[in-house]
């Protein structure tokens, strides 16, 4: 039974993609990174200093530069 939604991936408008569970994500250089926490945030703005993970940098971008 599932009446309360609990998706594996959630797009945060203007911010990261939340990813639930264990995954390997490759960064822009093709290097693999394994998730280390129950929920991870994958950078969508391209400006994080900790690729492929979000580090909050999207919040200081002008609105039109946010994903």
């Amino acid at each position, binding site marked *: 039974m599932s009446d*309360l939604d*609990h998706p594996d991936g959630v797009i*945060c*408008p203007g911010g990261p993609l939340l990813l639930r569970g264990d995954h390997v994500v490759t960064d822009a250089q093709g290097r693999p990174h394994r998730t280390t926490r129950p929920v991870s*945030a994958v950078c969508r703005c391209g400006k994080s200093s*900790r690729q492929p993970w979000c*580090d909050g940098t999207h919040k*200081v971008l002008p609105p039109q530069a946010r994903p």
Partner: protein
Amino acid sequence: MTPRGVGYLPRMLTPKARGSLSERLLEAIRARPRDLAAVVGDEPESVDDEQIALWALYELHHHGFEDVDDALEWHPDLLALRRRLEDGFERRLRSRWPSPGPGFRTETFAEDFFAFVEGHDGASLAAHVQRTADVEQVLDLFRLRSVYHLKESDSTAWAVPRLRARTKAALVELLYDEYGAGDPDRVHAHLFARGLEACGLSSEYGAYVDDVPVEVLEQNNAMTLFGLHRRLRGAALGHLAAFEVTSSLPSRRMSQGIARLGLAQEMADYYDEHVEADAVHEQLAVRTICAGLLAEEPHLAGDVWFGAWSCLDLEDRLARRLLSEWAA
């Protein structure tokens, strides 16, 4: 004191009094035989006096004191005093809060929340640490932060059984990460303890409470107040969300300041962990926890904003005090 067996880690001792009420209260809870009824009607002589008394009463619910009988946690005379101090404190927090907040609209809540935090233009200790603080100032800051970071997330955890399924699962999903996702070495409070030790500071719980300004006690006590009272679960979760939303970028600055001053890598690790973890937690706290709570209990919207605002305001008060002391 009765011996507690091999491996027992002694807890902190009661803190120093900061006025006549805390003086009499701390004496009374240490004494045997004790006369607690005598302190129930006492009035605090200052905010410092009130806050250290309340902090000590609250610690009975956290880890307690080596020099106080654990049975006092639920002693009716202490509960009566606690209630009176809490009432005054909550009234003061609410009187500082200027507005009822932006309300609750499902479609725009996350955006409203991030904008609300961004619009609160507070002083930043992290920016000072990043660029200008000296080693002594940063070590002082770690001492002050230790009062909370060594019990990181503990008061929020009290909200868990008071929530319905959707919000309960959402909060535990975040707390699980704060508590190391099953790995004791990754418990955030433990990461901070390791950082303290690597900096040559004490990692003993409560070690620095006598040194902290009243603003730190207010921060601590607000979290315990919100966490212990089911009635205030909205404020507890609003506070959590504001805390998470103001953590990731400042943690990066803290880490850069630690590197600039050549302080211990273990402490940088604590902040680096929070750059990444809180980039996740801020989304969860706003989008699944607070939005979930308000979908189930929309009447708590005012308290969510009250808790969020209190978090920002209390940090701002501490930051302004420290920055002006350091500038002097």
